[in-house]
């Protein structure tokens, strides 16, 4: 049976979760859970730890939904931010970082559980982001990827790359600002989903 909440935005679902609505929490998980897990796995490279990070993040959603403000961030962004924060906290605690966090987690093609349209959308979005990343100067790309996917802090990166901390900070800022421009340029003006991919 399709959920009665299927037509609601994630923001509206968070409003229901803030009211103690477990069905809304389940619906949020069904929409964002796979992306959340993919992100946590990319950072942590471990099933169990990735699941822990996702579980912690969704429980934080459950506990703190009343404090969520749609003015600050989209609900999906908020949830993925919580997941990422937990994943990097865990990777730092566990010292699990691999020497080369740049390897892409290739070989994980869209699983059968994803609908074709969702798979197409994710594929399109991933290509778009990777194309934008490739256009960054190598040093900026490296700083962003090592920080976001590798869980390195700016000061750890400075040490690892043998650069002054100030340089790393500027590089990360310039890189993220440039990435934003590149992504804006390639975004569909009606939103990230290009309807042509559905048919």
């Amino acid at each position, binding site marked *: 049976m399709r959920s009665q909440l299927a037509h609601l935005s994630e923001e509206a679902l968070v409003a229901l979760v*803030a009211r103690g609505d477990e069905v809304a929490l389940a619906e949020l998980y069904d929409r964002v859970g796979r992306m959340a897990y993919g992100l946590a796995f990319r950072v942590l490279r471990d099933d169990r730890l990735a699941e822990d990070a996702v579980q912690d993040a969704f429980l934080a959603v459950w506990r703190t939904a009343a404090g969520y403000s749609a003015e600050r961030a989209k609900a999906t*962004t908020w949830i993925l931010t919580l997941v990422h924060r937990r994943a990097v906290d865990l990777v730092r605690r566990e010292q699990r970082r691999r020497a080369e966090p740049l390897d892409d987690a290739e070989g994980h093609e869209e699983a059968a559980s994803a609908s074709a349209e969702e798979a197409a959308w994710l594929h399109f979005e991933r290509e778009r982001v990777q194309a934008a990343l490739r256009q960054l100067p190598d040093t900026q790309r490296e700083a962003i990827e090592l920080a976001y996917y590798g869980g390195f802090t700016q000061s750890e990166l400075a040490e690892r790359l043998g650069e002054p901390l100030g340089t790393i900070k500027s590089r990360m800022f310039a890189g993220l600002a440039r990435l934003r421009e590149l992504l804006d340029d390639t975004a569909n003006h009606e939103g990230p989903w290009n309807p042509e991919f559905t048919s």
Partner: protein
Amino acid sequence: MEPGIHELTAGYALDALDPEERRAYEEHLEGCQRCKEELARFWDVSTSLALAATGPDPSLELRERILTAARAEPQNVVPIQRKPRLTRGWALGAVAAAAAVVAIALGAWAASLHGRLGHANDRLAADRAALAIVSDPSARFVALAKGDGRLVVAPEGRAAMIVDGLEKAPSGKTYEVWVINGTKPTRAGVFAGGGRSVVAVQGTVGKDAVVAVTLERAGGVNAPTTTPVAASQPV
């Protein structure tokens, strides 16, 4: 503004600040509108990075584990039947929630992501009304005397009924909502049922009124003809 701390916005959006800097930045952020706006836009970029990181699927058990843990955990819910202090934060939150609900009509991101558009506009309008009530921070819950769910009553008697576990109404039938004042039932909308229904109650729900749901002929009738399948306690 100190340029150094502004630059930390990128590191913050990527979760790459050391704990001390993270705290300092968060303190700064409270009072810096420019950084708030910048951060919101950087978060959009980090969300794109997150989407690009798709890996294997989580185990099927993870979903159940999360829901079980949530059930066992107390939540920071808005207290029932207490006048909320409408601090600025809350007022903004309410506006934001209303805005979020409006976003449904704009073919919100997720709806298009999941290809779930195509609902009739009137249905969306009714759902928006119901959601606006449910997410109103000053609304209160009234338990149901019959059926699973609850009645949510916002100021001025605006109300929404949440009913769980009703079978979808059979062909030629519909569920009809009634507001009963004393012994007089007033028509208050129809819905199809099935799973969980969140339904705006038409008209207003005054003190001591009861909201009830009956199964009726498609299109609705002027007075209930069957025993309610769900009914609230008196408001």
